[in-house]
């Protein structure tokens, strides 16, 4: 029975002998453990009609009362996106449970409570189950179920379902709710901004039917554009057109999408509740809270972002490239290790062709190891260090929120910041993570932008090393990348069919990074990089050696020298482009060599850096593009990046000449 669901008076609950209870909650909150603890071992498993989603049903007993317990699939909010979420919502609406038990992870109340508020707003007779209370307490968070119960005007029970703790109290709370002894009529669980509240009042008056949810909840879902709710309204309500009109009006007055405003209001209310009901040991966060606000607001957030970018440049481009690489690559490899290896192999192996496999210009040891360990490893290490600091501080989700508006312009949502940021580590892995994006359109755009305009950590480090001597050069390179990102994204948004995504992400607290966490994350990434990069660089050197023997290498680099000449670059860039296709950072390292040898400098260096960054994705990324997006999209992305990189390079060269700019 749902309060406010306009279903008529309650039946005499005390006379009832059986009732239906639905368990809802996010995935991985211990919902199945609660189900098991309530029902024992026996459960009836079946696919929900018309889907492949499994649904569990079991029986439980409280005194004389028999309970039918439904374990719904994981859901994050009443706005359903995935098939599982749709099934969970259908079960809530169509199976008419007498009580809904919202199972939440007690450690993550701020993330969990927005859905609790939605369920209360929808009018369900709700019992909130704070599961995994033991973990919450041991991690320093101590939710107070009684205080939360008072705040929500709904029963709240703490449990440790895997140990069966609190299950009897949960059963009692369910029974009391069924008897109508719990959950008096409550005030609105959440209030939205005024324009939205006024629209909801009008909508509640306009709706003429019952929808298994309170009218307010139907209104909130409709104004957020929930497709199923809108479809139902279009079939049943004469005022449907007015609903559509109201959505546009409210969004114009709010200056943002309704879904965004709803998410903000729910999050703010959840934060307020958490402040009141958690006896947390960490109450020293006033300064960090203020700083957190500054990072999110555009006026202060963008300068902070520029400061962060500048700090990355100082650490990677100056400390990494000028100090550390000068020592590891310039002194250790060039002056000590390589001359020693050259003379050793010349003495040991009498055949120059075999010597070339290991040493000299393209040798596996003198080139492969020099690039991977002498040049790239120090750069990625300092980059990973900065990245781990940002990651552990909680800055990245704030960046997502800050960039949400800009990302919308390119057909993405703030959620896409996750793969984009991961792309700064490795674009190949990040492409796999694009699966988590909401729409197909968003996944294609993110894959394209990752292939085109997001340099991986090693490439980024080396490019910073290449351009570190001129701030102007670095600024031009960065500006071109940002412009390409925005222009290509905006064009893709128009050209690729499909709806635009909605973004909602909870923001964890900003915190002072833990030195140990930063160390572990940095070292773990360095270990992963060494494990991956050294064998690949050795293999690349082997391929180049074979290519040199067969003449294929010369033919390919010769062919790639033509577009290089067209861009006013030296012929040697043909070889660098080929390296870049084998691996992005390998190409960047080749460019570093040319710059150190004095073959390329000034404007040509900036043009070459831009082309190399935008150039074809490396072999590994191409394969993942193919696997994730299919052959047509992967081929289209490869061709686009190939031609686009040279075109942008030519445009940049011409623009610099025309403007008389030299770096």
């Amino acid at each position, binding site marked *: 029975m749902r309060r406010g669901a306009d279903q008529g008076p309650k039946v005499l609950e005390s006379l009832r002998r059986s009732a239906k209870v639905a368990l809802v909650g996010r995935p991985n909150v211990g919902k199945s453990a609660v189900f098991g603890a309530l029902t024992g071992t026996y459960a009836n498993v079946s696919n929900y009609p018309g889907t492949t989603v499994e649904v569990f049903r079991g029986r439980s007993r409280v005194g004389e009362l028999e309970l039918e317990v439904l374990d719904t699939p994981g859901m994050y909010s009443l706005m359903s996106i995935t098939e599982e979420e749709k099934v969970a919502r259908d079960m809530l609406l169509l199976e008419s449970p007498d009580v809904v038990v919202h199972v939440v992870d007690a450690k993550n109340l701020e993330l969990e409570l927005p859905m609790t508020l939605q369920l209360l707003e929808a009018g369900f007779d709700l019992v909130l189950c704070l599961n995994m209370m033991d973990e919450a307490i041991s991690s320093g968070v101590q939710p107070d179920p009684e205080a939360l119960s008072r705040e929500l005007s709904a029963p709240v029970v703490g449990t440790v379902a895997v140990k069966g703790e609190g299950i009897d109290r949960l059963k009692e709370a369910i029974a009391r709710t069924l008897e109508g002894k719990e959950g008096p009529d409550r005030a609105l669980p959440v209030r939205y901004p005024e324009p939205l509240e006024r629209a909801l009042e009008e909508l509640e008056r306009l709706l003429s039917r019952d929808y298994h949810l309170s009218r307010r909840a139907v209104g909130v879902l409709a104004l957020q554009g929930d497709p199923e709710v809108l479809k139902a309204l279009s079939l049943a309500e004469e005022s449907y057109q007015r609903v559509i009109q109201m959505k546009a009006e409210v969004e114009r007055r709010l200056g943002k999408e309704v879904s965004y405003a709803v998410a903000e209001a729910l999050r703010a209310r959840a934060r307020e509740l958490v402040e009141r009901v958690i006896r947390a040991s960490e109450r020293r966060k006033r300064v960090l809270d203020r700083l957190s606000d500054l990072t999110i607001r555009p006026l202060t957030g963008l300068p902070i972002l520029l400061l962060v970018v500048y700090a990355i440049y100082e650490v990677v481009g100056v400390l990494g490239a000028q100090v550390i690489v000068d020592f590891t690559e310039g002194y250790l490899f060039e002056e000590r290790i390589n001359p020693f290896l050259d003379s050793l192999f010349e003495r040991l192996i009498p055949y120059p062709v075999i010597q070339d496999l290991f040493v000299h210009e393209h040798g596996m040891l003198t080139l492969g190891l020099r690039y991977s360990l002498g040049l790239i490893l120090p750069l990625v290490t300092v980059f990973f260090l900065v990245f781990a600091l940002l990651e552990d501080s909680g800055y990245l989700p704030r960046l*997502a929120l800050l960039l949400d508006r800009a990302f919308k312009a390119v057909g993405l949502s703030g959620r896409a910041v996750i793969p984009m940021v991961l792309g700064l580590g490795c674009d190949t892995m990040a492409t796999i993570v694009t699966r988590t994006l909401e729409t197909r359109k968003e996944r294609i755009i993110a894959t394209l932008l990752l292939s085109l305009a997001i340099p991986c950590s090693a490439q980024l480090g080396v490019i910073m090393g290449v351009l570190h001597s001129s701030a102007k050069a670095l600024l031009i390179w960065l500006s071109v990348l940002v412009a390409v990102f925005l222009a290509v994204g905006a064009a893709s948004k128009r050209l690729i069919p499909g709806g635009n995504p909605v973004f909602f992400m909870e923001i*964890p607290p900003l915190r002072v990074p833990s030195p140990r966490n930063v160390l572990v*994350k940095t070292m773990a990434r360095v270990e992963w990089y060494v494990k991956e990069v050294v064998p690949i660089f050795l293999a690349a050197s082997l391929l180049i050696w074979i290519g040199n023997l067969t003449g294929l290498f010369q033919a390919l680099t010769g062919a790639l020298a033509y577009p290089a000449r067209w861009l006013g670059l030296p012929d040697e860039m043909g070889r660098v482009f080929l390296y870049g296709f084998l691996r992005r950072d390998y190409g960047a390292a080749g460019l570093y060599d040319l710059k150190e040898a004095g073959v390329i400098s000034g404007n040509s260096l900036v043009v070459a850096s831009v082309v190399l960054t935008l150039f074809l994705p490396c072999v590994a990324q191409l394969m993942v593009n193919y696997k994730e997006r299919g052959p047509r999209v992967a081929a289209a992305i490869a061709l686009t990046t190939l031609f686009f990189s040279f075109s942008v390079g030519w445009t940049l060269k011409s623009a610099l000449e025309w403007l008389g700019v030299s770096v």
Partner: protein
Amino acid sequence: MRCPICGFEFDEGQSSSCGGCPLRGGCSLVRCPNCGYETPRDSRAVNLLDRIFGRKKGHDGA
């Protein structure tokens, strides 16, 4: 562990599987079941230092 992006607390065992990923099995990353962000699981070098200096493994979100 705690996801550095969305703050979700989860056990490594809860990490959603990475079905279809070519690096499955040999990958040292843990994926947040809530938002999909990937973060390194552990560092062998740091573990080695821990063993040498006798420090117990922490559980502070790393």
